[in-house]
């Protein structure tokens, strides 16, 4: 067993363990953190497959942004764990059936001759091979239409999500920054001429005010 295989088994074991803990751990915050660990180990496996762009993007997008927002929400929720576990046994048979179907489908896809025997013995690339460059070239030439289509779909999804959740409030106190910056001293400050105070006691001051 060479070093690479050892690293693969390490990452594989870590991701399986983390994935299992995601669904078995009680506290949702821990579950989200285990999901982060699962993503991280998968990124390690992708690196072993020489897909460094996908691996780093997985960390950047899913670990660095998506899971952070997940944690943000999960931490602020007041989750009642007892209520969450209610009805577990009632839905258990349904879950088992669903899981069995999914396992069957996965075996069909991954175990089929066409997919299982292609690309097993890929040649290793030299050190100067840039996976990022290759991917970029393919995405912007051969697959430019599907890629642009996916981009437009995502844009529509963003616009729709914002439009659905945006609520305009009338009484919101926002400041007009342009107006603030454009403010001049003359607009807000009034210079008041005042005679100089005479040297003396407090009584002296009162006298000068009368005058």
């Amino acid at each position: 067993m060479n070093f690479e295989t050892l690293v693969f088994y390490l990452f594989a074991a870590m991701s399986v363990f983390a994935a299992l803990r995601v669904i078995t751990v009680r506290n949702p915050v821990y579950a989200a953190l285990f999901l982060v660990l699962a993503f991280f180990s998968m990124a390690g496996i992708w690196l072993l497959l020489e897909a460094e762009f996908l691996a780093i993007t997985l960390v950047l997008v899913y670990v660095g942004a998506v899971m952070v927002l997940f944690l943000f929400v999960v931490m602020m929720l007041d989750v009642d764990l007892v209520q969450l576990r209610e009805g577990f046994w009632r839905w258990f048979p349904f879950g088992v059936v669903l899981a069995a179907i999914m396992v069957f489908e996965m075996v069909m896809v991954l175990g089929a001759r066409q997919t299982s025997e292609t690309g097993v013995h890929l040649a290793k690339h030299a050190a100067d091979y840039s996976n990022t460059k290759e991917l970029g070239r393919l995405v912007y030439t051969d697959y430019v239409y599907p890629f642009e289509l996916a981009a437009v779909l995502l844009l529509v999804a963003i616009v729709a999500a914002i439009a659905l959740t945006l609520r305009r409030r009338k009484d919101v106190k926002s400041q007009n920054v342009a107006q603030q910056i454009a403010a001049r001293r003359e607009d807000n400050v009034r210079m008041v001429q005042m005679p100089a105070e005479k040297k003396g006691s407090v009584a002296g001051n009162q006298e000068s005010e009368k005058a």
Partner: protein
Amino acid sequence: MALLQTIQQMGQGLLGAAWLPVWTVVKILVIVLPIMGTVAYLTLAERKILGWMQVRPGPNRVGPWGLLQPLADGIKLLLKEVIIPANSSKYLFLAAPVLALAPALAAWAVIPFDDGMALADVNAGLLYILAITSLGVYGIIIAGWASNSKYAFLGALRSLAQIVSYELAMGFALVCVLLAAQSMNMGDIVRGQQSQYGLLGWYFIPLFPMFVVYFIAGVAETNRAPFDLAEDESVIVAGFHTEYSGMGFALFFLAEYANMILISALTSVMFLGGWLSPVPFLPNSIIWLLVKMSFFLFLFLWFRATFPRYRYDQLMRLGWKVFIPLTLIWVAVVAAWMQTPLWLW
């Protein structure tokens, strides 16, 4: 250089295949130990400079001119008790400072200090930097949540929203750099800025708005004044590290300062030509990188001494309504500019 080669050969002869990990660990130590030393003396520099700007001497009791002050601070923090709050989740509470510090150090792996002088000269270096620096936020949010304290949690939420917002602007600014350099290799980015006109070849000229945005976003990313709302001591005590004492607090402190040094190094490498000399008649050297980094570190301290803290909505406005549109437009401008003969870089 000859000495290094002799050491390499000797090591290989002695240890064989095990030499590579040993040599890598040596290189890591050569990078990390000076960073730790810089962090220690950056704290002293900060207190001295803040002092001078406020017309007071700053720390001057421990050692000559207060030079041993960081050492005294370190010993003090080491000897303090680590208090774990009641009803906190203990493991996460103890893991959080480590999670904050680890990315700040791991990012140094791809920083080129001189031509060919980097721990890992990888092609996707810039992407790696983006990914690793985006992990620093975990330390802060886990600290805030695990402390089981209102102030810590509020600080963590603030910090999280702030870092996620400014990361976008930073990412887009770096997209401009990789457009200009046509490479994500950090060494190639610096080499792309080499020209016979010295500093006129550096990317801060065509990418000037990005240079400014990147550094300001960097100040916000590191939770430094005037964007230090995550620890806003006048409102939420000390923010996410309210409950930390002793070494836990020290690790957060180390992480913050290591991040400052990292942002300074990145800004120097991306926009100010890293190890390149500003004038053609002087040789390129690592000293230039250190000078540029010191300048940015001084800016960090200068900002802290002179700017009042932002209000939270002002911070969000600056990130979302000013920086992100500006960076998006500049990506398009640079991409179009590069297609014309007017692009000289």
